[in-house]
C-alpha cells in the first residue's frame, strides 16, 4: 500500500516535472525567437541578406508550432523599431514567399492593430504601420492597387465637413510620409491613380489655414531659412521626389537582393481600411513648424547637406528624431546611437544631429523632453567626438546668437539656459571677444540681453569671482552685481529711521534664540508708517512692522538658502500674522526685493517657498510682479521665472484637488454599488461621506476661482502695460515693435493654451473672455 502510494506520488512528480520541462522549453524557444527577430539587422559579421535568409528558414520551420507568437513579435517590431522597417518587410516578404497563408495572416493581424490605433488615436504607431504596409508592396506581399485604395480612403478625410484641420492633417501626413517607400512602385504600376491622389493632396495643402504658424515659429523672419509648416515642407519634399521619378538615395532596401525569390510570390489584397469617424474626444497631433539652422554653406566642404526640400533631409531627420525618442532616458546611449547612425553619401551627420537636437529644444510651445536632457546629451556628444562636436556646437551657438534678434522670446530663454549650462560644464571657456559688439549696444537689444542673462545664469552655477575672471574687461558692464543682502538698519543714516531701534532689538533677540511670541512683542509698539517715516493711511497692512521683521529675518538668514528657510520656518507664525491681507503680502514681497535685488536666484527660491507655505497667495505675486517697483526688472528673465513658477504651482494645486475629488467620488460610488448589491463593506475601507466630498468640492471651487482670478490679473495688467507702451510709442512717433515689446509680447504667449483650456471648458467668466479677446486682438 505504502509502496504503491509512493509510486503514484513519484509518477505524479514525474508528470509534473516533464510538464514543467515542456513549459520551460516552450518559453525558451519563444524567447529565442524573440531575440532572433528583434536583433536581425544589427551589426553582424555576416551580411544582412544571409542573416535574413537564415532567419526566414528558422521561422518557417517554427511556424507550425509558434505562428501566433512569431506574428506578434513581428507586429511589435513594426511599431517599436521603425528604423529597421525595410529589414522586417523583407523578412515578411520571404516568409510570404515560403508560406502564403502565413503572409496573409500577418497582414490581417497588422491591419487589426492599425484599425485599433486609428480608433484610439495612437497616431505615431498608426503611421508606422501604414508605412510598413506600403513597403510590403515592394516585397510582393501586397497588391499595389489595394495600398493605393487605403491611401484614397485616408485622403478622403480632407473632404469631410466640420472637422478640425488637425484631423485631416494627420491622415494626409500618414500617406505622404509613406510615399518615399512606395512612391516608385505606385508610379510604375498605377501612375494615373497616383496622380489623382496627389492632385487631391495638392488642393488640400493649398487651402489649409495656417493661423497657428506665428505661435510655433522659432524665427520670425524667413531669412536665411524659410520657416515652413511641417505639412507644407513635407509636400515640397514629396513633390521633389516625384520630380526625380520617385527615386531616393537614403532608404536601405534589402528586398532588392531577393527579387528573384520575391517576384514569384503570390500577393494579397489589403482589406478596406476606413478611417473611424471624428468624435469630440479624439485628440490629434498639433502642427509644427520645421526648424532650420544649417544649409550646405555651413558644413565642411567634403560633405553634402541635403537641401531643405530634399526627401533625404526628411528621412534622416526622422530617423534622428526616432533615435532620440527611443533613447531619451539614457543620455549616453542616446549620444552613442546618434553618432553610430549609418549615413551614406558623405552626409555631415554631426550637423544634422545638432540641428535636430536644437529643433526639439526650441520646439514650441514645449520641448518633447526635459530641457536638461538636451544639455546633458550634447555634452555626451562632445565627449564621444571631441575633435568635431564641440566645434559644431560652437558654430551653432554663433549662428543662434547672430540670428537672436529674430528668435522667439521663449526660445531665447531656453538658449540662455542651455548655453550657461554648457559653458559651466566646459570651464566657462568661450571666445567672448567675438561678441564684443554687444558692449556698444542698447542694453535691451536681444544680443546684449542674451549675454547679460547668460552671465547671470553662469553666476548661479559658479561664483562671482570666477565669472569676473572668465570674461574680457570690456564686458565689465555685463557682469552681474555681486549678490549681497541690503539691510537698511545697519547702513549709514539708519539712526533717523523709525524702525531702527526695534530692528536692532529684534536682531539681538533672534540671535539669542527668542520665541516667535517674544519677537512679536518687540514689534508691537511700532507706528503704522512706512520705513522711511511716511504715514500709512491704509489700515489693512503695516509696512513698518513687515519691513523691520522681514528684512531682519532675511539678513540674519543670509548665509545660505537653508539659513533663510530655517529662519522662515521658525518665525512662520509671525510671517502669517503680518501678512493676512493681499496688500501686506505684496509689501512682504517688496521687502524681499529690497533686501535681495542683487540675488535673483534667492528671490526665485524665496517666493517659491512663501507660495508653498501659503504665506503669500499667487495673486499677490502677480500683482507685485506688475507693480511699479518691479518695472525696472520687468524684462529680466528671473521675473518671468517667478511668474511662470507661480502659475505652475496654482495649476498643480487645482489639478491635485480635482483628482482628490474624483478619487473620493469613485470610492463613494463603489461603496454605494456594493451596498446595493448587498455586499459587506469592510470597516478598513475608508469610504468618504457626502459631506466630506462637498467640503472637498468647495475647496476645489475656491482654488479654481483663484486660478481664474490669477489669469485675469495677469492679462489685465498685461493689457495695461502694453497699451501704455503703444500709446507712448505713438506719441513719440516711434515704431511700437521695440525690443521692450518683443520681451513682453511673446512671453505671455506661452499661457495661451492654459488660458484657453481654462476659459473655454466650463462656465466662461465674461470679464476674462473680454480680456482674452483684447489680448488676442493685440496680436492680430
Amino acid at each position, binding site marked *: 500500500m505504502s509502496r504503491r502510494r509512493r509510486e503514484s506520488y513519484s509518477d505524479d512528480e514525474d508528470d509534473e516535472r516533464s510538464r514543467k520541462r515542456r513549459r520551460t522549453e516552450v518559453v525558451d524557444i519563444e524567447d529565442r525567437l524573440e531575440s532572433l527577430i528583434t536583433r536581425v539587422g544589427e551589426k553582424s559579421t555576416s551580411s544582412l541578406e544571409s542573416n535574413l535568409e537564415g532567419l526566414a528558414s528558422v521561422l518557417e520551420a517554427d511556424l507550425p508550432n509558434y505562428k501566433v507568437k512569431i506574428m506578434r513579435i513581428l507586429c511589435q517590431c513594426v511599431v517599436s523599431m521603425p528604423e529597421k522597417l525595410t529589414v522586417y518587410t523583407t523578412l515578411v516578404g520571404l516568409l510570404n514567399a515560403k508560406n502564403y497563408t502565413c503572409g496573409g495572416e500577418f497582414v490581417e493581424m497588422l491591419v487589426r492593430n492599425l484599425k485599433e490605433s486609428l480608433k484610439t488615436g495612437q497616431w505615431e504607431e498608426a503611421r508606422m504601420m501604414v508605412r510598413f504596409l506600403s513597403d510590403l508592396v515592394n516585397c510582393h506581399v501586397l497588391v499595389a492597387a489595394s495600398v493605393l485604395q487605403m491611401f484614397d480612403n485616408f485622403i478622403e478625410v480632407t473632404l469631410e465637413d466640420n472637422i478640425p484641420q488637425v484631423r485631416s492633417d494627420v491622415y494626409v501626413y500618414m500617406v505622404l510620409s509613406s510615399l518615399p517607400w512606395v512612391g516608385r512602385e505606385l508610379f510604375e504600376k498605377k501612375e494615373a491613380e497616383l496622380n489623382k491622389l496627389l492632385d487631391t493632396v495638392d488642393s488640400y495643402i493649398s487651402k489649409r489655414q495656417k493661423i497657428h504658424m506665428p505661435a510655433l515659429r522659432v524665427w520670425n523672419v524667413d531669412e536665411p531659412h524659410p520657416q515652413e509648416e511641417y505639412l507644407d515642407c513635407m509636400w515640397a519634399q514629396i513633390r521633389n521626389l516625384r520630380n526625380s521619378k520617385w527615386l531616393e538615395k537614403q532608404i536601405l532596401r534589402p528586398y532588392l537582393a531577393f527579387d528573384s525569390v520575391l517576384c514569384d510570390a503570390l500577393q494579397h489584397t489589403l482589406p478596406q481600411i476606413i478611417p473611424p469617424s471624428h468624435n469630440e474626444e479624439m485628440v490629434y497631433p498639433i502642427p509644427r513648424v520645421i526648424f532650420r539652422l544649417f544649409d550646405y554653406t555651413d558644413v565642411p566642404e567634403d560633405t553634402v547637406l541635403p537641401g531643405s526640400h530634399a526627401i533625404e533631409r526628411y528621412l534622416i531627420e526622422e530617423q534622428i528624431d526616432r533615435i532620440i525618442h527611443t533613447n531619451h532616458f539614457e543620455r549616453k546611449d542616446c549620444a552613442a546611437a546618434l553618432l553610430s547612425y549609418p549615413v551614406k553619401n558623405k552626409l555631415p551627420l554631426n550637423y544634422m544631429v545638432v540641428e535636430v537636437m536644437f529643433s526639439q529644444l526650441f520646439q514650441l510651445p514645449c520641448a518633447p523632453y526635459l*530641457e536638461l536632457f538636451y544639455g546633458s546629451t550634447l555634452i555626451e556628444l562632445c565627449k564621444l567626438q571631441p575633435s568635431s562636436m564641440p566645434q559644431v556646437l560652437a558654430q551653432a551657438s554663433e549662428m543662434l546668437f547672430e540670428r537672436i534678434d529674430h528668435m522667439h522670446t521663449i526660445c531665447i530663454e531656453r538658449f540662455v539656459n542651455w548655453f550657461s549650462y554648457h559653458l559651466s560644464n566646459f570651464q566657462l571657456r568661450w571666445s567672448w571677444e567675438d561678441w564684443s559688439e554687444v558692449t556698444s549696444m542698447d542694453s535691451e537689444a536681444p544680443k546684449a540681453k542674451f549675454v547679460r542673462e547668460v552671465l547671470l545664469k553662469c553666476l548661479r552655477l*559658479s561664483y562671482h569671482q570666477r565669472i569676473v575672471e572668465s570674461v574680457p574687461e570690456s564686458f565689465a558692464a555685463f557682469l552681474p552685481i555681486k549678490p549681497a543682502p541690503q539691510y537698511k538698519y545697519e547702513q549709514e543714516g539708519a539712526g533717523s529711521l523709525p524702525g531702527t531701534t526695534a530692528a536692532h532689538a529684534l536682531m539681538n533677540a533672534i540671535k539669542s534664540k527668542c520665541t516667535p511670541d517674544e519677537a512679536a512683542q518687540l514689534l508691537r509698539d511700532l507706528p503704522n508708517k512706512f520705513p522711511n517715516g511716511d504715514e500709512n493711511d491704509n489700515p489693512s497692512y503695516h509696512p513698518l512692522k513687515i519691513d523691520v521683521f522681514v528684512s531682519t529675518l532675511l539678513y540674519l538668514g543670509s548665509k545660505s538658502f537653508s539659513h533663510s528657510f530655517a529662519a522662515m520656518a521658525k518665525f512662520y507664525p509671525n510671517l502669517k500674522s503680518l501678512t493676512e491681507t493681499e496688500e501686506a503680502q505684496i509689501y512682504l514681497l517688496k521687502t524681499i526685493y529690497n533686501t535681495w535685488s542683487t540675488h535673483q536666484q534667492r528671490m526665485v527660491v524665496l517666493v517659491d517657498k512663501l507660495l508653498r507655505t501659503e504665506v503669500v497667495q499667487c495673486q499677490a505675486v502677480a500683482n507685485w510682479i506688475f507693480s511699479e517697483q518691479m518695472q525696472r526688472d520687468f524684462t529680466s528673465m528671473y521675473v518671468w521665472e517667478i511668474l511662470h513658477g507661480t502659475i505652475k504651482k496654482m495649476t498643480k494645486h487645482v489639478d491635485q484637488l480635482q483628482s482628490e475629488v474624483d478619487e473620493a467620488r469613485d470610492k463613494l460610488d463603489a461603496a454605494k454599488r456594493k451596498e446595493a448589491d448587498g455586499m459587506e463593506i469592510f470597516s478598513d475601507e475608508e469610504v468618504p461621506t457626502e459631506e466630506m466630498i462637498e467640503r472637498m468640492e468647495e475647496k476645489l471651487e475656491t482654488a479654481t476661482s483663484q486660478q481664474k482670478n490669477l489669469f485675469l490679473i495677469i492679462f489685465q495688467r498685461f493689457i495695461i502695460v502694453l497699451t501704455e507702451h503703444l500709446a507712448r510709442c505713438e506719441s513719440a512717433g516711434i515704431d511700437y515693435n521695440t525690443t521692450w515689446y518683443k520681451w513682453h509680447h511673446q512671453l505671455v504667449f506661452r499661457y495661451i493654451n492654459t488660458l484657453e483650456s481654462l476659459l473655454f471648458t466650463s462656465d466662461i467668466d465674461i470679464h476674462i473672455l473680454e480680456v482674452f479677446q483684447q489680448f488676442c486682438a493685440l496680436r492680430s
Partner: protein
Amino acid sequence: MAAKTRPDGSAALSQYRDQHYKGSRTEQERALLKSTTLYVGNLSFYTSEEQIHELFSRAGDVKRIVMGLDKVKKTPCGFCFMEYYTRADAENAMRYINGTRLDDRIVRTDWDAGFKEGRQFGRGKSGGQVRDEYRTDFDEGRGGYGKLVQTKIRRRDP
C-alpha cells in the same frame, strides 16, 4: 511592469548600500526604490548650496538640500542630500545630472533612503568623509591631500 518597480539603466539602484541603515536589507531596498532623495557626492568643499540648487532644479522642483558637514569643523565636506517633491524628478536627476560637472568637478548621484538627523556629518575619523581620510592624491577642492597623508607630511616637517 518589472521596469516600473525596478528601473533599469541610469535611474536604477547602484550596488552601494549604506552600512549604517537602521533596518533590514529588504527594507532598505524598498525605501530606496520609492525614495525621492539622492546622495550627491564628489563636490568641492567650496561649492555652495545655491550652486547645487541651480543645477538640480533643472531636473525638477527641489524640496530640500541638506549640506554634508565636517562633524568637527561644521563646514561643508563635499557631499549633500538632495530631496525632490516627486520620484520622477529625482529619477531625472539620476539620468541627466549624474556624471556631469558642477564647479568643474564630476558630480556623482545615488539613491538615498531619506535624510535622518545626524547623517549630514562626515563619518571619517577626522570629521570629513571617509574617502578623504585615505585619499593619496592632491585634490584642491577637497582640502588638498587625504587626512592620513597630511599627517605624514606634517610629521616629516621639522
